[in-house]
């Protein structure tokens, strides 16, 4: 029998809750891109409501961490695990907010995005989503190499974002400026999602060995 069985169970539960929050965040982000692709505006309002649930999940994780520090006084790896749960939850919450921003910008679009714009945004979003998914897997497994690999993809997203902006503002003959601005915002939000996935990967490394690495 473990000396601190209940405590270890609490640590495992905390991680489980962060992973569950990650699933919710990925699901809503993926749906927001789907709405953009299909220009399915009726689905925007119900999806916006999901952000509240994500915010509540973050607060619940904060409360659990506060209680755990107060009652169990974790140290060393245990302390990093509790702090990292807090940090990952914050990054996930920010991805939730960016999803809300994508939905609002989609609502402001004068018309649906054209084929080329959609293709480029889709590509970026697919990679960003994959990064979040893999960052959360690395978090689940405590896998340093996996975390590093996630971060290496961020450069690809950055590059695609630049290409997207260039395309938007060099071929605006038949695109209204307001439309182009909203699309640029969406591109920016997707690029920020990838940045948060990189942050999560950095926290995985910190949790594992206490080192702060700037992978971005």
């Amino acid at each position, binding site marked *: 029998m*473990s*000396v*601190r069985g209940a*405590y270890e169970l609490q640590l495992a539960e905390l991680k489980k809750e962060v992973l569950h929050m990650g699933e919710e965040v990925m699901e809503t982000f993926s749906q927001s891109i789907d709405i953009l692709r299909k220009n399915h505006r009726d689905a925007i309002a119900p999806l916006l409501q999901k952000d509240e649930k994500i915010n509540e999940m973050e607060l619940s994780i904060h409360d659990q961490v506060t209680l755990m520090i107060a009652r169990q*006084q*974790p*140290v*060393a*790896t*245990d*302390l*990093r695990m509790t702090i990292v749960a807090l940090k990952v939850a914050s990054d996930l919450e920010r991805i939730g907010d960016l999803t809300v921003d994508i939905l609002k910008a989609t609502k402001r679009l004068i018309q649906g995005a054209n084929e080329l714009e959609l293709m480029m945004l889709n590509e970026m979003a697919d990679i960003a989503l994959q990064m979040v998914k893999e960052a959360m897997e690395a978090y689940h497994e405590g896998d*340093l190499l996996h975390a*590093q*690999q996630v*971060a*290496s993809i961020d450069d690809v997203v950055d590059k695609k974002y630049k290409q997207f902006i260039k395309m938007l503002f060099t071929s605006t003959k038949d695109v209204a400026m307001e439309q182009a601005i909203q699309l640029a915002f969406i591109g920016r939000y997707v690029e920020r999602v990838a940045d948060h996935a990189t942050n999560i990967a950095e926290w995985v*490394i910190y949790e594992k*060995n*206490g*080192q702060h*690495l*700037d*992978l971005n």
Partner: protein
Amino acid sequence: MLVKTKESLEVVKKIEPKEQKVVYNVDQLNLWYGDVHALMNVTMPIYENEVTAIIGPSGCGKSTFIKTLNRMTELVPSVKTSGSIYYRDKDIFHRKYKVEELRTKVGMVFQKPNPFPKSIFENVVYGPKIHGIRDKKTLLEIAEKSLRRAALWDEVKDRLKENAYGLSGGQQQRLCIARCLAIEPDVILMDEPTSALDPISTLKIEELVQELKKDYSIVIVTHNMQQAARISDKTAFFLNGELIEYDDTSTIFSKPHDERTEDYISGRFG
């Protein structure tokens, strides 16, 4: 696929040691109680004006270690030692080194407060009197100075002639610290000094330790991990008579290098 990183993952950032004077140099210390090998090849320096915490589960040798520093273990007949302990560059096991000389420089505070059945004043000046100081004014000055340093003066200044047993447990322990300070030691050894005290008295002693390290070097054995984390500069983790890890307290409690240290400080055994 590896990506750009500021430094390799394998590199452990080492804290550069600042220039510090060493009070004790313990080298390959072994100690046996009869056939029981209680300390095994312990090698560690103890630095000046620092608080060094000794932690480890019961029976790991931490109390034995601290008692060896002022040769108190010699009171046990079956004790045998090998290796060396240098205090201020002098070998304390050398046959010409007088134990009395060592103990005037190295004071000790024990787990349970152990005042003498005498007045508060007599308790504090007991040591100086043994060393031949008889002048009342001088003794009073020593008593006041020591009690002030032990953060007890304000509480007892009007009842110096009362019996020390009338004090609370926390006050008695600070009196024992005052008694220890009265002989003007260089090092203070503390063997679980707060384990018999309530939380407020414990915090008072901890505050006092922080204050005292400006002028003394302190070695403290503690079972209370949070206490070691709160008050010490360096921490040594002992297990089954071996020194497993010795490092800055901030490293021991955040990124210990040995898994056994991590398991112990996070309460997984002990």
